[in-house]
């Protein structure tokens, strides 16, 4: 199975109503599992798209910056509580979710990642880490229920999901700062 089919299968699988219902029934799973998996689906499909439309990517994303900006915008958009709520209640937003995450985040991410330098990559990881800590605190501290569809305890869980992911990113950043791979390999 090539990557494109794998990605397409993943996208279709995630869109199956029982799967979607299960994943969307838990707030943190909705945001930290379903959505990243959709991005991964796009990431997998990207290869074929890149091969088919090399000129397009060359023209519009030659240094990787536009692509990564698009990725950031889409990711940030889906971190807003209200968008998650709408994805559950408004059909067109739900469809937008299934299109935007794979095709407007996953594909540009793959096309841009290789074009970015080490510094930009680290800058991107660091800014997402900071953002995750901030979002985590927001979801944990908020005294109000932010989504109609999810209880406060779910919101707190999501907050801790953000914090633990950010903590993992910090471990990674420290590791790559402290350990010089050329000492070992």
């Amino acid at each position: 199975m090539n990557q494109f089919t794998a990605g397409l299968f993943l996208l279709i699988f995630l869109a199956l109503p029982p799967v979607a219902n299960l994943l969307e029934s838990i707030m943190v799973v909705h945001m930290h599992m379903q959505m990243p998996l959709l991005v991964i689906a796009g990431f997998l499909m990207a290869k074929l798209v890149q091969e088919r439309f090399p000129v397009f990517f060359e023209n519009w994303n030659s240094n990787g910056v536009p692509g990564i900006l698009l990725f950031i915008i889409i990711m940030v958009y889906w971190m807003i509580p209200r968008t998650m709520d709408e994805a559950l209640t408004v059909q067109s937003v739900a469809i937008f979710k299934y299109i935007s995450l794979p095709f407007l985040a996953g594909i540009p991410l793959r096309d841009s990642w290789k074009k970015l330098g080490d510094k930009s990559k680290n800058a991107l990881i660091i800014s997402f880490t900071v953002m995750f800590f901030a979002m985590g605190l927001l979801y944990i501290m908020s005294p109000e229920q932010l989504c109609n569809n999810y209880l406060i305890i779910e919101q707190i869980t999501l907050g801790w999901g953000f914090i633990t992911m950010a903590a993992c990113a910090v471990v990674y950043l420290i590791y790559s700062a402290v350990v010089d791979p050329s000492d070992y390999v």
Partner: protein
Amino acid sequence: MEALKLNFQDKTNKALGINEEDALITKTYMLVAFTALLIGGTLGLLQGLNRAGLLELPVWFNYYQVLTAHGLLLVLVLTAFFTIGYFYAAMSHSLGGLLPKVRKMAWIGFGMKIVGFVMAVIPILLNQATVMFTFYPPMAASPWFYIGLVFIVLGVWMCAFGAFIQVANWRKNNKGQHLPIISYFATGVFVLLFFGSVPVAIEVLYIIPWSIGWIETINVMLARTLFWAFGHTLVNIWYLTALSAWYVVVPKIIGGRRFSDTLTRLVIILLVIMNIPGGFHHQIVDPGIAESVKYMHVFMSLAIGFPSLMTAYAMFSVFEKTARKKGGTGIFAWFKKLPWGDVRFLAPMIAMIAFIPGGAGGIVQSTNQLNQVVHNTLWVVGHFHLTVGTTVVLTFFGISYWLIPYVSKRVLTPKINKLGVITTLIWTAGMSFMAIAMHWVGLLGSPRRTSYTTYADNATALSWDPYLMFLAVGGTLLMIGVLLQVYAVVHLMFFAPKGETEFPIADVEDNASKTPMWTESWGRVVVLLLLLVAMGYVIPLVEFIGNAPPGSPPFQTW
């Protein structure tokens, strides 16, 4: 210069065998491990006889004390000491001898584990820690029991960090090379030992003030969850240790080559990354976890089946290739060409075969509805005597017949080999009787962790008796197996004829493709491991803590 010196050391090490100081570490660890087998096995026999209604245990050493000691000795002491002793010898062999610093850490770790173990055992003997090896709150033991456990964990960490230092040092001096496969297994095991014992350390540090009375209540669900994050990881540590022998040692013993190096390393990485969240399959009937969350955790548990299937494929492929090279033909060529009379092969081979029903039973138990049928019955006890009691333990036995001669500079005589074959067969027969009886009677409802009772001559309870008799028969055979095995270990360590025994490590195929370098980036593996832990644990832990019930004071239920 430094590198040259090390290279020289490496060569002498391989030519002359293990140096005295490194050997002493492994010999000591092995002695403790097999002493635990002797005592633990004896206690197992007492339990077996009791469950069959043949033996009433005295009040000063009751069934549950025996069970606590049996569990702790076999599941913690035997396995931990064996694993550490084995992998320290493996690192000494494949990484050019242990660094003096690392050797010291292994001894400090040894001391801490022994001190901790004594601290934990005394309250068990005094009937003040009859909490079984899972020590679930709100049952509360004497604080000394838990303090002992803390020391054991610290001792294990000492050994884990010793291993990390040894491996990092080797890699600095051997840039561009892959860590030798056996030490790669060791690294995986020590990474799991370290990260897996973090949760139980947290649990115990939470229990201690509660058992002393400084805090009044404890969050029972939180404690259970932390326990199984560790307990399940421990299971995969044994499994990974057994795998190291299957992938690396067995092919050498049968005169073949080992399976693809890249895939072997991939199996290790997968097991290390995916393992810790699997702990939830021990909590399938626990309250406080949403059904949907449990459902998703089933995937996590079953995912472990993937590397297992890869292993089964790998093993058969190695057997097949080896047999063909030796001139075997037909579909069952591999079967005829294998050295069945060699205990170093026979024991791990039966271990692998036992893993087929063992693994199948595991899949059964991971299923919600079926789990409700077998939970806390003797079925479960049958399951882990197949998996740890047979698969893991027989692999350990098989290892002991070359590892102990290797570290004591002696040789395995044909007589001891024969004895080993007999031990293996007795163990297989004993475990078959015992495990099948346990599975079956468990399905009929007989509970685990319950000393013999007929429930006032209740008809159902009486119908269990014939099966329990089989259990006792199996237990008696196993006791004979224990005695023979311990005899073999002592003989090989102190009395067998002097000579050189090699540490059997198979080579890869000549035309093997090069292993990619990404397999060496342990930092990334650890980050992925932590991410999966976060994915698995954030939801239930926030629920348990955020919606916590009032908590429970300590109880002494016995």
